[in-house]
């Protein structure tokens, strides 16, 4: 069930009506939890048991934090078991075949021929998101950031809440759980802002991402057939596609949660206008990057143990962040490229930038261009099906040369420029927010008209969100 499908609107209308009709907070949570399981079951009901299992373990490990203080060691063991369990679930479904294949390849290089075991597993939708949320709950409880929930329903609700269940944002337990303790008040819901945000997300996903997806597929499926300008356009289009797809989903998730009375933090903030990679990561998939920072980079030592250790921690975090997306060396390289850029930036900052006067607007634009170029170079490895394809596309992207002759339709370049302009204007004038602040009547008329225009540019056919595969 996609946010842009008619059946989701029907589903949401029923849930919305029921939730706000109920006065009891307990019953609202029951309805929302049940609805979330229905939502997830619409993809594959067989994996409902998996979410339930992750929830049970999180609940038990959370309650272990309430054991007496003399049992600190046992509490740590419980937390360790909980984290290992969550990561094992993720590892089994997502990484088993990757590591098994890699082990066999490595053994082959050593002249050994071990037996090859491959599991025929279907990747459960959203597994990376809800396992991370489960870890967030267990760790936050054991750190004392939030109290363990005595109610199993609360933990189940937190992990399964449908707006963020399958593709994030990764909502921190410490942000969400306090919200569920009191009944949400309709008066606190900014309906117009939520609807405006949903429309913005819908536009990004359905009108932009879904329209350019076929062009991106053409290029990445057969890059050698295309001219250099088409390949470069294809790479840039993928950068636009993944941003609009994922941030569109996040916008719609935040809007849906908001209409039900729950607040999620923003997951994107115009990342392609970032002047450097560090800022990019503060604006791209914010919930994951901050999760990795707080639960991985800082526990590894962060930047507190010298520059060398900082760089190692950075690279470790980024490579693991790449692997979080999927079991492939391409994701490792993607993470490596970002880690490398962060290390170079820090070193540049330490050794060079501090000694010179800032370059002002020119420096900012140069920084943005360089960051955008590098981010798109990394996207090649994120999107291409194989390492060989990635290298071929990257070669064209860097050298501007290709032996292919096919070209993409002429519309792609004006489209890229128009989207870039819209991105900048939207960032500067906060168009979505401005729409949400209109008086009720103009708002209703404007959203009605904009929806009609947007619908005309929604391509027909089923195109799931890119991040569902993660």
């Amino acid at each position, binding site marked *: 069930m996609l946010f842009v499908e008619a059946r989701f609107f029907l589903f949401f209308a029923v849930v919305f009506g029921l939730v706000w009709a109920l006065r009891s907070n307990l019953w609202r949570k029951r309805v929302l939890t049940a609805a979330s399981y229905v939502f997830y079951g619409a993809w594959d009901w067989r994996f409902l048991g998996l979410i339930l299992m992750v929830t049970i373990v999180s609940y038990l490990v959370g309650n272990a934090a309430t054991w007496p203080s003399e049992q600190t060691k046992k509490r740590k063991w419980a937390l360790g078991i909980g984290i290992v369990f969550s990561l094992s679930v993720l590892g089994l479904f997502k990484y088993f075949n990757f590591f098994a294949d890699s082990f066999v390849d490595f053994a082959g290089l050593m002249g050994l021929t071990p037996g090859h075991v491959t599991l025929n597993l279907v990747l459960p939708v959203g597994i990376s998101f809800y396992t991370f949320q489960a870890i967030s709950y267990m760790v936050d409880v054991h750190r004392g950031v939030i109290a363990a929930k005595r109610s199993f329903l609360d933990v189940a609700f937190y992990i399964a809440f449908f707006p963020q269940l399958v593709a994030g944002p990764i909502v921190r337990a410490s942000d969400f759980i306090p919200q569920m303790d009191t009944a949400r008040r309709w008066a606190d819901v900014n309906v117009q802002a939520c609807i405006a945000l949903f429309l913005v997300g819908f536009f990004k996903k359905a*009108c932009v991402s879904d329209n350019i997806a076929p062009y991106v597929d053409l290029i990445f499926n057969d890059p050698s057939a295309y001219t250099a300008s088409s390949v470069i356009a294809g790479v840039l289009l993928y950068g636009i596609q993944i941003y609009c797809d994922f941030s569109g989903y996040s916008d719609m998730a935040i809007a849906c949660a908001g209409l039900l009375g729950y607040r999620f933090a923003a997951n994107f903030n115009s990342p392609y206008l970032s002047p450097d990679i560090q800022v990019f990561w503060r604006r791209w998939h914010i919930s994951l990057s901050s999760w990795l920072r707080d639960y991985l980079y800082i526990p590894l030592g962060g930047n507190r143990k010298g520059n060398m250790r900082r760089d190692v921690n950075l690279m470790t975090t980024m490579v693991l962040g790449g692997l979080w997306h999927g079991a492939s060396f391409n994701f490792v390289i993607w993470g490596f490229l970002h880690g490398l850029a962060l290390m170079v930036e820090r070193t540049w900052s330490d050794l060079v930038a501090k000694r010179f006067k800032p370059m002002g607007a020119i420096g900012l634009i140069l920084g943005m261009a360089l960051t955008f170029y590098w981010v798109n170079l990394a996207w090649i490895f994120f999107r291409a099906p194989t390492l060989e394809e990635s290298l071929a596309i990257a070669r064209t992207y860097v050298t501007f040369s290709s032996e292919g002759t096919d070209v993409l339709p002429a519309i792609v370049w004006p489209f890229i420029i128009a989207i870039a302009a819209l991105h900048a204007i939207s960032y500067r004038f906060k168009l979505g927010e401005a729409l949400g602040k209109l008086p009720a009547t103009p708002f209703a008329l404007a959203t009605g008209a904009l929806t009609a225009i947007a619908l005309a540019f*929604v391509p027909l056919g089923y195109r799931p969100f890119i991040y569902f595969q993660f």
Partner: protein
Amino acid sequence: MQTLLRALFTPQVRSGAKPAVLFALAFAAVAAPLSLALRAAAPMPDLVVLSPKLAAYEAAPERYDTVFVGTSRTFYHIVPDEVERGAAEAGCTGWNVMNFGVFGLTGAEEDWLVERIVTAGEGHLQRIVIEDPLMNARDFADATTDRARFFSGPDSWQAQADNISSFPESLPKRLYRSGILGLGIGFDLSGVGRGAALAFPSGKPDEPFTFEMRQDGFEALGSLMTPDIAARRQEFEDHPERFEEMLARYGAPSSEDITARATYLAERLDALSARGLTAALYVSPDLAELDRTPRTGEAVRNLPGERIVMNFNRPDVHPDFFTPDLWFDFSHLGEAGARRLSFEAGRDFCARSTAESTSQEFSANAVR
């Protein structure tokens, strides 16, 4: 129950009623004209069988003077060469016949197609044979296909309504079909996807549907096997007893009023005749429709005025067509049956059209 009622009339719903109405009005005010403008700018969708046949006809209308338009019972039953042979044997030599059968052809589609054929064939086309078209879609999924959408535009509304209102069915069924038509029209007017299709052309366009016109539009059922066709054949082979059961339905009393349908078909024949064409109604052998189409054909014949009706779905008049070995499934003849029927159709059409023209000449002379 109380909770459900509260869910329907929450303060949120009440306070949202006015903005919702305004939203809907603004949506309709923008979506409908936008959709119509984009519809006008969009090319006709590539429709299986229909598009390649139309392209072939419009490219060389001089090749044909006689066109059969209808459903799969035209597509799989009318062999142009056999029609020409039958006509020649009856004294009409030199006919050039085209099979313009399209599976699943409904009333609105037939009207549209006939208009295109008559317009393109002006100066060449002399005879046109139409079939009683099918009822409108009865499946929700059918409301949103490219074909359904193309025929849900304002130009087709009247024809769609005529087809539904004339078809001999119960009121609930008509309402249901009207509902699906309404859904299709709503979907079309919403404009969904129209701008996207125009603004983002496919990088590598799909291969257009092609159709081998070697047999002037005819295709023997079963010569191209699809899972659906194979299943229909299998069902026919697995249930031989049904053949006799279906035959028994012929002539059985029916409460269905076919007057409106007969008038509907007669109006179309008369309109074609008024344009100087020899028009005929062809009622195909069809076991599944033995309780309906034979009566419709006869009702058209019995209406005041002269019309050519070739009613082959009458086991009492054409018993040769109703032996199981000639049938592919319960609605369609196999190739041997199609050839026999086509020869007969050519002979019958020639005889009747000659008789009609003689009668018209006689009437004209009598008046004079």
